[in-house]
């Protein structure tokens, strides 16, 4: 089985919202569009988006860290939003595991949005149907596009490559290796929804340097102390 998903590296994301605008641009003008807006150039603009970037501050000043957190449908392997749909408009694709909404069947009852613990679904206030991230199904399943472009718009737009895309069921894929080797985790694992999307945690890069690595004990340029000849041979005195 194939389960396409995103892996988002929180260590790399700089919160530039390029994925948000690229997603909106592609999807409002494509198969899943339009993603309508209300008061887009006025006070309190609001509208439908598939992808948002939120920002959190972790810790207490001065020891704080800013975490930018891109948030879109996680394409759960046990999607709680799908079985509750009374019409079958909400479904999970068999071939690649993407969770989609059939806009022609959706009655706009909003029950699926209640059944998503992550709040990843948004009702389009004008079209009155439920909308959500399609993982750019019209790109990734489009054989006429060159292989390199068969990726979601957000992934192609990310300037820091914080977003990886691939099959999380293939153990040798880039995403599976990233999850395995860099501590990839799922959101709200307590609900058993098995989100396919994973996040890579923030990682501190620290170098460990010991004193004697900086300063060779028998450095002839050392002036502060007499040469430690009395201490016997060092490794450098041994000739091979």
């Amino acid at each position: 089985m194939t389960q396409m998903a995103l892996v988002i590296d929180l260590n790399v994301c700089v919160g530039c919202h390029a994925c948000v605008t690229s997603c909106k641009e592609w999807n409002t003008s494509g198969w899943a569009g339009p993603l309508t807006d209300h008061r887009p150039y006025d006070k309190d603009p609001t509208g439908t988006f598939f992808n948002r970037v939120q920002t959190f501050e972790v810790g207490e000043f001065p020891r704080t860290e800013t975490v930018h957190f891109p948030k879109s449908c996680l394409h759960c392997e046990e999607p709680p939003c799908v079985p509750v749909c009374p019409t079958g408009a909400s479904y999970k694709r068999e071939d690649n595991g993407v969770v989609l909404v059939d806009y022609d069947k959706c009655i706009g009852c909003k029950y699926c949005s209640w059944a998503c613990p992550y709040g990843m679904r948004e009702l389009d206030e004008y079209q009155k149907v439920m909308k959500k991230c399609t993982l750019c199904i019209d790109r990734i399943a489009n054989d006429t596009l060159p292989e390199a472009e068969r990726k979601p718009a957000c992934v192609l737009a990310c300037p820091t490559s914080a977003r990886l895309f691939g099959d999380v069921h293939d153990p040798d894929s880039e995403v599976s290796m990233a999850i395995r080797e860099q501590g990839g985790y799922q959101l709200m694992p307590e609900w058993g929804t098995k989100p396919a999307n994973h996040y890579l945690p923030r990682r501190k890069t620290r170098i460990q340097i010991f004193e004697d690595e900086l300063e060779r004990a028998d450095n002839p340029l050392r002036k502060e102390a007499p040469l430690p000849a009395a201490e016997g041979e060092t490794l450098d005195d041994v000739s091979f």
Partner: protein
Amino acid sequence: MHPAFSVIFLTTLIGVGQGLFLALVTGQVYSLANLLQPQDSVHFYAMGAALSLAFLLAGLLASFFHLGHPERAWRSAAKWRTSWLSREVIVLPLLMLLIALYAAVHYFGLTQSLFVIQGVISVDASLILGILGAIAAFALYFCTAMIYASIKFIEEWHSPLTLINFTLFGLASGFMLAAAFSAWTGVDLVGFFGTWAVIFTFAAGVSRGMSLRRNRHLVHKSSLQTAIGIRHNRIEQKSQGFMGGSFNTREFFHGASEAGVRLVFGFFLLAVFVLPVLLLGASYWLASPYLPVAAFVIQYLGLMAERWYFFAEAKHPQNLYYQSMA
């Protein structure tokens, strides 16, 4: 959660309709066992069933206002294998059909005995339809409540108490309406239905009290730590990704002030559990046809407030992502 008036009207109105029908069937079964005087088919049972049907119709009508595409509502019967909403959509018209047939059988006097069980119980078409309708009415309480109780991460709702509350509130208001209907039409069943209404109101008070207590001490499974997967005791949201709100901030927050919520809470406690019982009690002595009607109306208003509070007290875990803006 944001309390939608369409859903408040739907759940309270059909609850009354089901309860009234169950009250009529209860009355019929009692009179069959010679515990009550048999009532007039046309004026009591047929009219009562029509009244119950009117409430169910009004509820159904209200539900359409909840939909973005009401013209596609017929599609919602498709996924009855998995969705409680779909099951409700099937059981509600089924119950309405049974009640309509029940009303028709009484209205046209088709109540000749079909067969007799053990030489005592005379079974006619209305009794069969009444029993089938009663089963459907209970099934509908179950379906309606399961729509809410089946969502495991809305923990305030995910409890058997939700099922018990919906059923008992429906029964209480339905029997209250039966008492009001009896009083209004001059039928001598006000005491019978009124007593049951008070019993159900009291039982609903106990079970709602238990769920309120449960929700007050509820420790939510999800936290901001599990929501974004960062282990730190102090995480503060600085941006939600927008300034002007979104579906997430409109649908999942009730938006009322704390004082407003407390006001609704106090009103529903008084209007559902206290005032109707006092009014019914007074009607025993005063024998006024207005008091049971007033009791029903006040309890119904109280139930609307109760349903509003039911939504407002539910905290969806998605709200963790929409806590603050810098």
